């Protein structure tokens, strides 16, 4: 059992949970994720480790309510126990000193971006971060991101905060202004697709972190497969980060909808 020791509501649909998991806190690196199951009947859902505290033996998760399981998780409180939690999973982000790094995060993708931004900054890079979301409430972790970025640009679809516009507009401005050596992007698949197209145009090496549908997370089922450079990869063990210019994002978007009908039924059952 894994106890929730702290909870913070970032917005109506996004919460931060700090969970006691000392082993994972010690072994995790930026880019790693965990899989948890709330109770006997729950699904196994993947979530990025946003932060870890080795002394306290805790990891931080940022969860967006998008369906049945995430809703139940968001409703849990301090003192509640999560039945199963395994990790750290995935390959850690390759972090080195490259010069200037452009980090583009969208929506709940800002959470997994945080440890990566921190890692690049600590490795001695100049880090410029673009955060984007539909509206002001969905810009999360701004303070934490600022702590590890030389500059932060905020974009909202409705202009309720920062500049009105898409993440790619903010990113292109930077690219035109200064030399960018590497780009990382995490967010909705469509967003990452357009960031990838942009940086390809400017020939900037780019990593994207995929949020494929998963079951076991240990390479055993293949639910998480994605086409990268014409080859099938398993996101949970080969990723979750891949060279963004080689990812077949259209396939990823279709695969994310693979259980739509079943998810809708579950949603209706849960809310009836």
């Amino acid at each position, binding site marked *: 059992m894994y106890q929730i020791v702290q909870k913070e509501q970032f917005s109506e649909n996004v919460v931060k949970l700090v969970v006691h998991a000392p082993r994972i806190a010690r072994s995790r690196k930026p880019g790693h994720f965990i899989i948890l199951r709330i109770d006997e*009947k729950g699904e196994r859902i993947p979530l990025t480790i946003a932060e870890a505290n080795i002394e306290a033996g805790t990891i931080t998760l940022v969860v967006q309510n998008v369906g049945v399981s995430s809703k139940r998780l968001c409703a849990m409180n301090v003192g509640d126990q999560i039945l199963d939690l395994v*990790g750290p999973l995935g390959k850690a982000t390759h972090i080195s000193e490259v010069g200037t790094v452009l980090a583009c995060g969208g929506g709940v993708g800002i959470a997994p971006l945080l440890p990566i931004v921190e890692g690049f900054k600590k490795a001695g890079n100049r880090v410029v971060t673009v955060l984007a979301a539909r509206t002001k409430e969905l810009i999360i972790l701004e303070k934490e991101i600022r702590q590890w970025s030389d500059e932060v640009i905020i974009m909202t679809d409705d202009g309720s905060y920062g500049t009105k516009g898409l993440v790619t507009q903010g990113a292109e401005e930077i690219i035109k202004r200064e030399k960018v050596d590497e780009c990382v992007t995490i967010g909705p698949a469509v967003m990452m697709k357009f960031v990838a197209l942009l940086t390809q145009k400017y020939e900037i090496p780019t990593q994207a972190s995929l949020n494929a549908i998963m079951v076991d997370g240990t390479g*055993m089922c293949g639910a998480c497969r994605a086409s990268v450079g014409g080859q*099938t990869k398993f996101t949970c063990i080969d990723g979750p980060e891949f060279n963004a210019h080689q990812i077949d994002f259209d396939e990823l978007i279709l695969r994310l909808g*693979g259980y739509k009908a079943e998810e809708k039924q*579950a949603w209706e059952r849960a809310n009836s």
Partner: protein
Amino acid sequence: MKEYLKIERDQEWRDQLRKKIKNKERTTQERVSMTSLDPMERIKYQDREVNLGLNMEQAQREASRCMDCVNPTCIEGCPVSINIPKFIKNIERGEVLEAAKTLKETSALPAVCGRVCPQEKQCEAQCFYTLKLKKEPVAIGYLERFAADFEQQSGAVSVPETAPKKQVKVAAIGSGPASLSFAGDMIKLGYDVTVFEALHEVGGVLKYGIPEFRLPNHVVDVELESLAKMGVKFERNFIVGRTASFDDLKAEGYQAFFVASGAGLPRFMNIPGENYNGILSSNEYLTRVNLMNAAKEEFDTPVLKGQNVAVIGGGNTAMDSVRTAKRLGAERAMIIYRRSREEMPARVEEVLHAEEEGIEFLNLNNPVEYFADENGRVSKMRVQRMELGEPDASGRRRPVVVEGSEYDIPVDVVVVAIGVSPNPLVPSELPELKVSRWGTIEVDPETMQSSKPELFAGGDIVRGGATVILAMGDGRKAAAGMHKYLSQKNETAAN
């Protein structure tokens, strides 16, 4: 071994039993047939066991067919050399608990093996009846299951004695049959044994792969409880190499490791359209249903229920998947296999059961491409007919494409069950470990010791996809090998 068998056979009671019935009479009896649930009834349930088991009378009659041969060739067919006539004769004389004890001399999970061993290729293939009389063999598997179930149901499951505790910590990685038999032997020797499992449930393929209609969970649970009673510790949600490294565990006092992480990596065919929605590996399909209970409404995990389900392959995994599809309500549940029925690696009984359940067999067919609807969901598959050519290296006749024979089949779910590769998790964490070209861990076949002296390995991670009984045999060998290694090492350290 020969000596031991002779001493056992010479026992008074066996001699008398042999004299009771003439061999002529024994050999004229018909082999018992297993009672099973009605096919049309059983396909409504994912978790009702198909075979119902023998009753006492059936078992004793079948046991009396066995002639208690001077040279019991059947034993040579069993990978763990169970003393087959001894256990069968115990059934014949009504000492079923003794029979169960005999099984446990060499096998850690007889209730499992009696159900899932490919007997027709192993013990029963070497029975005197098969070899010399050209008759149906003694039903060794059914009898094994009978004795093991009898013991489980009697509530008299004996907890084997364990040696005094040694305070020496060892770890088993993975919780499939190889690890369970290893843990059983090591705990008896007095070691402090912890089994680490990556998933949230213990049992490996026995739990997440093989469906309940073939191997009910409670059968496995009894064995797990008995190990726990003996003192084996289980750590779930723990991936050795990730949650903690081998070095971390060494620092915590673990002196040696048995890696039995299985062959969990599913293979795909890499043909066009294979990543469309609705096309999944048998591991994913079976895991959703068996481990995550996706077929039950009150559980959150979804599973795709198709009307036209095609399963690619001819092994046990393929049979389990296609029969699961039928139970989930498929109108058409098909096996697409590129060779003929003769070459199918699945247990013969499973193929028969599948046929009874209305599974269609499209043998000598091979998929070449998939097509999808506008949402990316598979809608049809193109297959090509095959014919059998010359035998290949495995001795099976090789399938050859019939040119221009392509045709399309409408499908909405496709399950790919063409085999698995070794789980790469452990080897990828230990770059110095010697692995083969196929990713299996290389070991000394006698001791199961790897290129790292404190690391032993067995089961599917060493053999590629193999069988439950071979995995268990490896676990026992590794326990013996590790015991010897640790005894020597700790002796040297003490001197």
